[in-house]
Structure formats: structure tokens, C-alpha cells
């Protein structure tokens, strides 16, 4: 028998019961779509995180006080001061220690409220820290300027708003701990994107002095510790940790990437399992549909046997019905999953809960489709369908011709 004839017969049989075939295909389609959409979004998330980590150098460590700066618990937290800058600078392998102040804030731009961040830092060090960062307009505020700010591109021109902030305009800020401030915009940053857990485009950069003034604290929020070479990152990290014990938290970009990626790969497995379960349910549907079909066509199977079809040929006719069902379901599911993944990506904010979901278009995740994923989404449903169809198809092929021909 030609393979083309086997498939022609299979397709004719499927077309003969259009509704049932369509419903079976929908089952497979949903399974494949879920797999494609979820895995592509999760891939996109981890790719996005990796990309944002890449902007900060592999030789950069972030040192924070061990409990979070906005916790108001009674637990005393270790205070980072100029003394710590000296301690850290003394560690072998440390090239530079950049202290910073930061806090979450609601920035109001022409009536639009944006969840952003205020970071007080030595602005002359900004380009050492964030590779390729630059101004599209104006200049960085000077060290001693406590009224000026350089703002991220999203704050200058919020998405979904016609407002456009110019240099020397005012922006007002409500701090997350209460209180409000206003700054004169001196510089506007070029679009940059996310770094670690913050979005540069949603950040207001101010001088150290302004930071100290407005956050009403003489203690730093944290340090960026830059090592002389990337190889020394882990030894420096170990030295800091042995020096401070549990008083500080030290993060290095590389370890953050790997820990996030392990979370995201766990997520991929989990999401894949959800897709797998829906495919399994679909497979049970195929088995069921095929059993009914074999029952209904008992007489036809008897006729095929009388015409000289061998068991193997009858098996392949029925199995190819499953293959066609799986192939169409897989193909449609992959296409549906492709579009679905953009929807999911739109709801999946990157990073540590800066803005709420959908707060800004730039912070959403682009799904990533690998050839592996597409191939898997196309072939796995076929494999599942064949497995699901195997038992009913075998049953068809092993029927006794005489019995089958008498079946009413």
C-alpha cells in the first residue's frame, strides 16, 4: 500500500465524521497551544532577565543591608556608612565602591502616575556602572545640586500619554514611605531598559547629597562594588560575606542570572507539565473517539479483510487517522500558542515587582520561540496521538473477518 493511499483513506474517514474529528483536534490543539505559549513566554522571561543582567558588568557586586530598606519591623538592621566604604575598598580585588540611596516612588508626570524609583548616586560613575547609558537631552546634575534630577526616558514621555517633559521642567514625586518632593529636570536619559531589578527608564537619578537629603538618612541603601577583574567577583563576595556575616546581602549579576534561570527553568518544566496534562487529556479523547470509530466500522473492517487487507495495513489506516488528528491539532495549536504567548508575555512583568502588570509597554516580555520548541509542539502531539490510537487500531486489525462481517 502506498503511504499516500493510507493517508487518503484516513482523511476520508476523518471527514466522514467532521464534528467528532474537529472536537478531537481541538483537544490536541489546546494542549499544544498551552505548551507553546507557556514555554515561549517563560523562555522570553529568562532571556529578558539575562539581557538585563548583561548590562551590568560581570565584575559588579551589589551589597545591601540584610533586611530590606523599607521594612518597618522592630528588628534593627545593619546600617551602611562611609566606614563600610573604607572596609570594602580595603578588600583585595576591589577596584571601586559606589554607594547609593534608593527608594520606590510614585512619579507624577503631567497628571499620569508612574511607579518608579529614585536613585541617589555619584552621577559621574553612572556610565561605569551601566554600560552604554547616556543622555538624550540636557546634562547630569552636579554633585552638590539637591534640586535637580536626570530622569529615565519613560518618565520624560510616558507611554499612553501625550505629555512630554522637557529639560528645566518640574516633576513631582511621592515617596513610598510618605512625603512628596519636586525636582527640576536637568537631563533626560536615552531609553536603556532593565538592569537587575530596576528599570532605568522609570528611574529618577539625583546626586548623593540630594539622596541623603530627601531620604532623610545618613545611611546608604547599598553599594556597588566593582572588582578589578571578573574572576575576582567570587573571592571578593566571599570576603565580604565573611566580614559581615548575615548583616549584608551580596549579589553578583552572574549568580542572580543563574538563580533566576533555575527558577525560570523550573517554571518551564511546570508549565510544560500543564501543557502535557492537557495533551494527555486530549490523548484519552483520541483513544475514546477511535474506540467508537472502530466499533462503528467493525463491518467495514470485515470488508477490508475480505478484500485482502492485511492486519498491518488495517492497523496503519487506523493509526494514520490518529497521526492526522495529532498533526492538525499540533499545527493549529502551535499557531494558536504563538499568538497566545504574546498575550501571556504582555501580562508577565519582568523583574521584582517595580510597576504593576502592564504599567509600561517596555517592561513586558517578548516570547522566545526556539526551533526545539516548535519542533516539539509539532511532533509531540503526533507521538501522543499514535500512542493513544495504538490500542484501538490494534483491536481493529485483529478482528476476525467472519465475526466483523456479521456485525450489525
Amino acid at each position: 500500500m502506498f503511504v499516500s493511499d493510507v493517508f487518503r483513506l484516513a482523511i476520508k474517514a476523518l471527514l466522514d465524521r467532521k464534528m467528532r474529528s474537529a472536537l478531537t483536534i481541538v483537544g490536541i490543539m489546546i494542549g499544544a497551544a498551552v505548551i507553546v505559549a507557556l514555554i515561549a513566554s517563560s523562555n522570553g522571561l529568562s532571556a529578558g532577565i539575562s539581557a538585563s543582567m548583561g548590562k551590568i558588568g560581570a565584575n559588579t557586586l551589589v551589597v545591601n543591608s540584610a533586611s530590606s530598606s523599607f521594612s518597618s519591623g522592630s528588628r534593627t538592621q545593619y546600617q551602611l556608612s562611609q566606614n563600610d566604604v573604607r572596609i570594602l575598598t580595603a578588600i583585595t580585588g576591589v577596584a571601586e565602591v559606589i554607594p547609593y540611596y534608593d527608594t520606590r516612588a510614585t512619579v507624577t508626570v503631567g497628571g499620569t502616575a508612574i511607579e518608579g524609583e529614585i536613585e541617589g548616586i555619584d552621577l559621574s560613575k553612572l556610565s561605569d556602572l551601566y554600560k552604554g547609558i547616556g543622555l538624550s537631552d540636557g546634562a547630569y546634575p552636579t554633585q552638590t545640586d539637591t534640586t535637580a534630577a536626570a530622569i529615565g526616558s519613560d518618565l520624560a514621555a510616558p507611554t499612553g500619554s501625550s505629555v512630554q517633559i522637557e529639560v528645566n521642567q518640574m516633576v513631582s514625586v511621592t515617596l513610598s514611605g510618605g512625603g512628596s518632593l519636586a525636582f527640576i529636570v536637568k537631563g533626560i536619559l536615552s531609553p536603556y531598559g532593565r538592569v537587575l531589578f530596576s528599570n532605568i527608564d522609570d528611574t529618577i537619578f539625583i546626586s548623593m547629597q540630594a539622596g541623603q537629603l530627601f531620604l532623610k538618612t545618613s545611611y546608604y541603601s547599598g553599594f556597588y562594588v566593582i572588582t578589578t577583574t571578573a574572576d575576582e567577583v567570587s573571592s571578593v563576595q566571599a570576603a565580604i560575606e565573611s566580614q559581615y556575616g548575615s548583616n549584608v546581602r551580596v549579589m553578583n549579576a552572574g549568580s542572580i542570572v543563574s538563580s533566576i534561570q533555575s527558577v525560570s527553568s523550573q517554571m518551564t518544566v511546570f508549565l510544560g507539565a500543564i501543557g502535557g496534562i492537557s495533551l494527555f487529556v486530549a490523548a484519552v479523547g483520541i483513544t475514546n473517539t477511535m474506540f467508537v470509530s472502530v466499533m462503528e466500522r467493525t463491518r467495514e473492517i470485515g470488508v477490508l479483510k475480505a478484500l485482502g487487507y492485511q492486519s498491518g495495513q488495517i492497523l496503519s489506516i487506523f493509526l494514520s487517522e490518529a497521526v492526522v488528528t495529532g498533526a492538525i491539532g499540533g499545527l493549529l495549536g502551535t499557531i494558536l500558542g504563538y499568538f497566545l504567548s504574546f498575550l501571556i508575555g504582555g501580562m508577565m512583568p519582568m523583574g521584582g515587582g517595580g510597576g504593576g502588570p502592564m504599567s509600561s509597554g517596555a517592561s513586558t516580555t517578548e516570547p522566545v520561540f526556539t526551533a526545539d520548541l516548535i519542533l516539539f509542539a509539532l511532533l509531540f502531539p503526533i507521538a501522543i496521538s499514535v500512542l493513544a490510537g495504538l490500542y484501538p487500531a490494534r483491536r481493529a486489525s485483529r478482528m476476525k473477518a467472519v465475526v466483523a462481517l456479521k456485525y450489525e
Partner: protein
Amino acid sequence: MGLAGAVPSVETTEVTKVYRVGHVDYPALGGVSVKIERGELVSIVGPSGSGKSTLLNIIGTLDRPTAGRVRIDGIDLRKLSDDQLAKVRNRKIGFVYQSFNLISRLTAIENVEMPLITRTMPRKIRRIKAIKLLSAVGLVQKARKRPTELSGGEQQRVAIARALVTEPALVIADEPTGNLDSKTTREVLNYITEVNKRIGTTFVIVTHNPEVSGATHRVIVLKDGMVEKDQRFQRIDAFAS
């Protein structure tokens, strides 16, 4: 009798068939030995339960005897596997049934092509053969119709075309006119007689209809699983030579 030295089309030797239901045995055939020469037009008659259909299934290689030997065109079926039996069936035997047994979702021409598909015959060639057979039974205009769009007589002609498209040596027909009126019965019968005469295809027909058995050259009467009578009405040598 028969052609000198020719292998008989069908030869059964002491064929028995016992059906076992639970612990009870039901003998259906009690030792049937018949020899049907090539080109014979034979009918098998007998009351229901006499074993006609059982014998037909065994000759048609759809069922195996409990004991005894069956040869089709000299091939001993005992030694063959199920797949080999399927091949013998496809190459040598055509089937015609009372209820036509056409595949309802396929058109007339597709039904006729079915036995050729299993042979890995290219589509064009099978089409040509199927059209030839459909025009021989006078249905070439209805080639694209499905069985449900055809009358009973037309359906049976499609089934006959399907049985003959493989150019079988033997056609087995189980009550082929059982669902037809007397006019179409006569048409079908005329066609069978004509094919038998012109091509020399062997026909074995199970029937209750005296008109059908009357048109055959030999009537085998079965009773209680045994051959009760075996009558020839016309020497087959008359047209075989």
C-alpha cells in the same frame, strides 16, 4: 471431468468445523469434500443451519476449518499465515454479499478500487481498471455516486465490479440476490453467467432462490453440515474447450 491435468479451483477434503460456545460444541460442518473445477458456476443450497455460509467462509479463506484440508488453485491453505491468506484472498478471490458491503463514505469508483489499493497499484492504473469494470456493469455514469445514492441493484453491480476488478479466479457470492427484486435478480444473474462464460471465472454462490440455483451448472445441496446431493446440469467441458 474438468480439464485434463488442470488444478481445481477449490478442493476441500474432509473439512469439518466445530464452533465451541462455552463448553458446548456445535458442529457446523461434518466432513465436506468437494472439488470445484476452474470455470464452474456452482450454487450451494440447503436449509438454514446446514453449513452453507460456514463452508463459504472456509473456501473464501476468511475462516479456518477445525480439521480437513482446503486448496485454492492448488494452494494448501493450512500452511499459510493470516497475512498470506489475506494475499491469497486479494489475488484469487472476489466476494459478493447479500448486503453489498460497500463502504458508504466512498464513491462507487473508490469502492471498486479498494482491493487494488492494498496491492500498491498506482492510482492511475487502478482508476482505469475500476472504470473498465464499472462500465462493464453499466454504471460508469454513476462512478462518483456514493452507495446511498444508488439503488439496490446498482449497489450490487458496484460490489460485483469490486469483486471482479482484481481478475480473480474465484468469486464467492453469499445470497447475492437476496436483497434484490426479480428484475434486478435476473440482470445480476445474467451478468454473472456472462462473466463465467466469457472469462471463465469460477463462481460459488450460496442461495435460497431456485431461480439462481437454476441458472448454475452444478448444485451442491448441504444438510446438517454434510453434502446431501451434488448435481451437475451441464458438463463444464462444453464451454471450457
